[in-house]
């Protein structure tokens, strides 16, 4: 398990609040965020934005291509589900949690804080 705390990078403005429809996701490439990994930006059915490392902790799959329902994303390959709020793995075959990144909506803009865990400052 990776417990290393990477320092948070400066926030990236990804666009307006209606950037994504609820229940959809977007890949934020490493080049865009400056973070070493691709990040998945998710909008839960509730309308809240979340971000996780895009690559599934199980094998090679992109979580932003997964199925979003309520505040969970289901991997498009072997169907492990992850909680969008805290990245917790909810069922096998993945056994590791997904890393979260903080997302804020400020003045109508979606701001991604790459490398800062959700719930962190």
């Amino acid at each position: 398990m990776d417990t290393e705390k990477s320092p948070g990078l400066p926030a990236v403005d990804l666009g307006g609040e209606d950037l994504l429809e609820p229940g959809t996701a977007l890949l934020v490439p490493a080049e865009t965020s400056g973070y070493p990994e691709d990040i998945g930006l998710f909008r839960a059915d509730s309308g809240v934005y979340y971000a996780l490392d895009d690559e599934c902790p199980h094998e090679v799959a992109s979580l932003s291509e997964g199925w979003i329902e309520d505040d969970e994303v289901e991997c498009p390959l072997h169907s492990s589900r992850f909680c969008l709020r805290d990245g917790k793995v909810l069922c096998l075959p993945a056994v590791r949690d997904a890393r979260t990144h903080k997302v804020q909506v400020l003045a109508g803009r979606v701001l991604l804080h790459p490398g800062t865990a959700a719930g962190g400052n």
Partner: protein
Amino acid sequence: MSIESILIVGGGLAGFTVAQNLRTRGFTGTIDLIDPAGIPYDRPPLSKAYLLGDKDAAGIELAPASWFSEHRVGLLRATVHALAIEPLGVELQDGRKLHADILVLATGGSARPLPVAGGDLDSVLVLRSRADADTLRGKLAPGIRLAIVGAGLIGAEVASSALALGAEVTLIDPVETPLVPAVGPELARRLHAMHSGAGITVVHGTPAGITRTGAGRRIELADGRVLECDEVLVGIGIIPNTALAQGAGLATDNGVLVDEHQRTSHPGIYAVGDMARTRSADGTLQRRGEHWEHAMNTGATAAAAILGQEPPVHGASWFWSDRHGTHVEGVGDMNAEGTTILRLKEGEPVAAFNVAADGRMLGAAAIDGGLMIRAARRIIDRGIIVPPEALADPEVPLKKLAR
């Protein structure tokens, strides 16, 4: 009687899931998991990432060793030799006897031997366990001629992995297009064609005998053709491990018979995973499930039933397979009476849907269509009626139809 101790025989996915779910459901008594292999591991990677060396033994464990101590699940590295009924328990191969209030059988299956002369040679490889995968991996040097009998799921996956490791692969199957029952003829044809496309020699034929030829093997086909190779792997399905259950007088029929709550014919014994076969309340015998998710689902159901809790509701059955860099999935029943609707991309079928006369979806299969299958699954489970034109139209995201 309150339940204080539970013994699980077999620590594959099904047995492990029982233990895990018993704890999440609040059981505080004793749980012991018996398996000669120790820490439970996942089997799908054995023909894929583990065989290729992309994952090691630790990488396929279903939980780390610490999980078992944290959750007080005892792991006994042993083989069960027999079940005991009065009092309920097991006898291990080394003669030790253990007792428990409840027994769960989760012994999976064994590779089905090829029923021809030489099919049972020790030198014929199979793939069921991590040890089998290690043996196979040890033989797969570049240039080695590997013949695989059976081009279903495991045979096809090993063919793809062995090719990637530099082997010269021949894939033999008596059926011209394998996997039709699982994914329908259109996708099955496309999948099977990928083998020859990738450089595998595909042979349509029935093996009639295997003989040793010095260091190599010779496979004779029923039509007289002869294939020379260095190693033979047989992947023609499994036989459920029901010997323990039969020895204890439990009802079996190509699997240990269970009701919808995974209860066997003995009230204190449950059976889960590949080795269990459901007999519905009206007496109909279901097809025995042999897929990953089925093992997990039956384990979850058994845990609930043992504790007298409301069992979880599971949807249509689901499986996947990975080969030649493509991902195949099937959900529901592609065999049930219905009409096939194809979704094409650049003239090639990417998905097939089996739709009943009343418009309900019965089954779906797709190649590299993860989101489509996730949508189809909900359409099936929720009985959503979807217009056939929309299913066929690659421009219509299935997800919209599932909501």
